[in-house]
């Protein structure tokens, strides 16, 4: 197999967190999470559903825009992906603005479904491909969705992992913070410490390297997963997998 791309390492790493689940939903503008969900589905013997917003082939909803939220509210969605212009050490997500809310320095599209889905979907995987002190901050400027809630708030869902272009964190629910799980090939713990704006826990033992997909997995990623993802994200599929 040729050189393994970062995208393929991310797709593989994310997919490992989805095995055994029944229904994975993927939001708009998320080609890597979408591919990861499709990869996990190939291992599920037909027991996993994947719905991808914006897809015609992988979208079984028929009751309008509200249905995906109603499904999540009932507990019929096991995993979802969220990103953020900023993510902080308490797993708060900001999709709205940098600076003062009423006169922001930067304004982004908005919170979309995050203020709800983060509360009700059991495994929310945070995904940010720019791992810098600018994006992974001490404290977000606007909380679209809080990482954790007080005891009396209904909260079956919440953050599960945070994956970036440099590493993978898992969520320490007791301490309400992130803990470094693995570092992607070519990156170091020192670099992660330097490039992360928030404090996080380090494991007691040496931090492992994020697994590189084996040849069989790569074949699936570059084959059927790439073909399916090109329906929704043609420019991504063309850039990464050379699918025209």
């Amino acid at each position, binding site marked *: 197999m040729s050189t393994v791309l970062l995208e393929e390492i991310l797709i593989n790493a994310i997919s490992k967190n989805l095995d055994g689940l029944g229904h994975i939903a993927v939001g708009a503008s998320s080609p890597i999470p979408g591919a990861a969900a499709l990869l996990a589905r190939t291992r599920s013997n037909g027991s996993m559903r994947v719905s991808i917003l914006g897809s015609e082939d992988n979208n079984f909803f028929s009751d309008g825009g509200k249905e995906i939220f109603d499904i999540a509210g009932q507990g019929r969605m096991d995993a979802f992906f969220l990103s953020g212009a900023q993510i902080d050490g308490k797993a708060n997500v900001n999709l709205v603005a940098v600076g003062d809310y009423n006169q922001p320095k930067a304004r982004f599209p*908005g919170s*979309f479904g995050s203020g709800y889905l983060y509360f009700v979907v059991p495994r929310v995987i945070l995904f940010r491909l720019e791992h810098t002190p600018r994006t992974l901050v001490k404290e977000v400027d606007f909380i679209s969705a809080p990482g954790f809630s007080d005891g009396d708030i209904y909260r079956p869902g919440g953050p599960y992992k945070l994956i970036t272009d440099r590493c993978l964190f898992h969520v320490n629910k007791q301490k309400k913070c992130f803990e470094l799980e693995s570092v992607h090939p070519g990156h170091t713990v020192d670099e992660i410490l330097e490039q992360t704006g928030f404090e996080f826990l380090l494991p007691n033992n040496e931090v492992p390297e994020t697994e590189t997909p084996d040849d069989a997995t790569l074949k699936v990623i570059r084959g059927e997963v790439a073909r399916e993802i090109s329906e929704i994200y043609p420019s991504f599929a063309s850039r990464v997998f050379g699918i025209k």
Partner: protein
Amino acid sequence: MLARELTIEELASEIPDGSKLALPPDYAYCALSAVRALIRQQKRELHLVGVPSLGFQADMLIGAGCVATVETAAVTLSEYGLAPRFTAAVKSGSITMMDATCPAIHAALQASEKGIPFIPLRGLIGSDILKNRKDWKVGNNPFADEKDDPIVFLPALKPDVALIHAPIGDKFGNVWVGVRREQMLMAHAAKTTYVTVEEIVEGNIMEDLQLKAAAIPGIYINVIAEAKNGAWPIGIPGGYDSDHQHLKGYVELAQTAEGFDQYKNEHIYNSKAEAAE
């Protein structure tokens, strides 16, 4: 009962300044030809409601100075990048933002649909969305067993006008929207609904049970207007694709107020554009 059939210009003239105007996102059916007429008629102080998000329609209306308030879960031009006139307006403070989350818009419209004053929704507690929405309240679940169960209460959201586009309608005002059923929710919840359609077809849509299953009945539809390619430059699902070159060109021009005015003069105000509507 027959629906009133108007021209696009007449339809737009019935939407008053200050209306609470519900619009769908770009991936649904957007009545862009009617939006251009609103801009030509220099509407002011509109309160846009995104169901649940907004796109090019909102950016153009904001750029043209038609908008006072934006209530939405997001304003996005998806792969075309940030919405330039929206972003500039928020930064300068020229519009009031009512940030929401998608299911809050759907749920609040469902309260209007049912004719009830409010609806509870999970999530939101601890977010700055909630903190900035003085019209939303946190109460206790009245059916909670022993311990408190705080939950958000949203007041019913009743737009003055829902403005949508659809592939086909008939002279009775029945409109087929297919799988885009949020347009049905909009029509159920709004005081009045104005629809532009690609084609006003012969006969009665409700006599075909397959069409009826995905149609808004005329009882909700006040006015219908025929607008071939009425969503252009956006596409319609199962119909025509978005005009990518045009949308890219819009986003480039709309980076500045002057550029937006140039776009407006070329594509919205000029007589050729008007005659084509």
